[in-house]
């Protein structure tokens, strides 16, 4: 198993796409972190020196998880896109192990990207004076920790979706569109108590968000996110294991 994870890490390290994605995550985080700094003090935006501005800047690290999600999807679908899946599954006939190794490798990369994104957001915050040690309190620390721990879980969800829908463009577009846009739309159409149990609701709970109605406790949010990830990964594994590979 260790050898498999190392092989996956080698693959991620030596192809261009993961690096492009990491750069995307950094640029996205920087852009989102600078946004509240530029807006500070203008209509409706919190001023520098308030906890709200600090949360907005550190919260910029919360969107980079989507990039790790895409990385997870690509880790699986690229094998089918380029036809290397045959060789991979000939090398390791137990396909489930390959998927678990991919999940583990993407989670490790997710942690690394989370650290980089936190560093980027903190740098913007410290340089602009928005992040000040006296403003930090346990709730804010929990929020940042939750946002960062969500990265590897996003990656695992990506691997699950990639295994489930191996057609790369669809597998990439669907979860992104769902998280960014479609879930909000869908939640308008279902009874209100469902919302906290959605992916966005679970993430809000896990990242200690204060602006989500009926938010679940942090631990429940974490368990729910892990549950979503494992459920998708299991379904994806079942699908891959029984699939004809050409």
């Amino acid at each position, binding site marked *: 198993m260790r050898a498999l994870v190392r092989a996956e890490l080698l693959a991620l390290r030596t192809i261009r796409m993961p690096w492009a994605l990491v750069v995307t995550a950094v640029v*996205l985080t920087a*852009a*989102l972190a*600078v*946004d509240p700094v*530029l*807006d500070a003090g203008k209509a409706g935006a919190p001023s520098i020196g308030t906890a709200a501005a600090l949360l907005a800047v550190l919260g910029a690290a919360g969107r980079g998880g989507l990039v790790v999600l*895409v990385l997870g999807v*690509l880790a699986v679908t690229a094998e089918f*896109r380029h036809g290397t899946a045959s060789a991979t599954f000939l090398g390791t006939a137990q396909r489930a192990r390959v998927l678990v190794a991919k999940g583990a490798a993407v989670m490790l990369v997710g942690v690394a990207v989370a650290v980089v994104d936190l560093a980027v957001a903190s740098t913007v915050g410290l340089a602009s004076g928005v992040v000040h040690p006296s403003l930090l309190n346990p709730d804010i620390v929990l929020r940042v920790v939750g946002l960062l721990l969500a990265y590897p879980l996003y990656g695992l969800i990506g691997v699950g979706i990639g295994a489930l829908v191996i057609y*790369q*463009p669809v597998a*990439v*577009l669907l979860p*992104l*569109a769902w998280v*960014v*846009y*479609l879930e909000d*739309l*869908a939640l*308008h*159409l279902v009874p209100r108590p469902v919302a906290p149990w959605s992916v966005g609701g679970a993430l809000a709970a896990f990242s200690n968000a204060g602006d989500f109605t009926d938010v679940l406790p942090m631990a429940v949010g974490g368990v729910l996110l892990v549950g979503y990830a494992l459920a998708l990964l299991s379904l994806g594994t079942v699908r891959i294991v029984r699939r004809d590979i050409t």
Partner: protein
Amino acid sequence: MTALIRSELLRLRTTRATWGLLAAALVLTLGWEAMVLSGIGGIDAPARGSAELRDALLGSTGLGMFAVLMLGVVAATSEFHHATVTSTFLATPRRGRVLGAKAAACALVAPPVAVLLLVVAWTTGVLAGAISMTVETETLSVVARSMVVAACWALLGIGVGVAIRNQTVAVIVPLVWFLVIETLIPAYGLSWLLPWLPGGAMTALAGGRYPGAQAAWVAFLVVMAYVLALLVPGARAIRRRDIT
């Protein structure tokens, strides 16, 4: 050229992606419409039977236009994705004509899709008792405008697909552009740029109002400039490229 366009139309008609995208457009439109309908009577929501509500309901087809954009992207990139482009270019060695036929086919297909979405949205609104059954001249002008808008979305999709070619990247880039980058623009004090960006121009063309929005015909020219700016270099690159 007519034969090429006909074969592109045949391909659109007989591949699953087209119908999947059409279904997605319907679901997105109806989803948005359901949200508008459920908001009736709420704060700031347009009243039952008002012209604002009619516009809001017909406007829900705007979300479905994203699927039309994707139709263009997929039409331009799927031959590269599935490597069928080799035989296509063997049969029609003048590659520019193939790309032109794809653009024409998508521009032909998009307006009827827009009309279908509008009919569905309007019928749903009437059935829900939210708007009256009389068709006013404004409704017809919305239909005409939407047909042009849909063709523009499809052409923009073709442009993105031809310029990028990698289907996965070509599918994500518009999503990120319209949902992330253009929404961040005002925060950076660049609001003056918005009317000149593809999303801002498409909004103005569709009749959306915001500070600095161009007149519809200027917005149309801006969109066409983007289509050409994407399509011409992309087509040049494809013409000179080794196809395996």
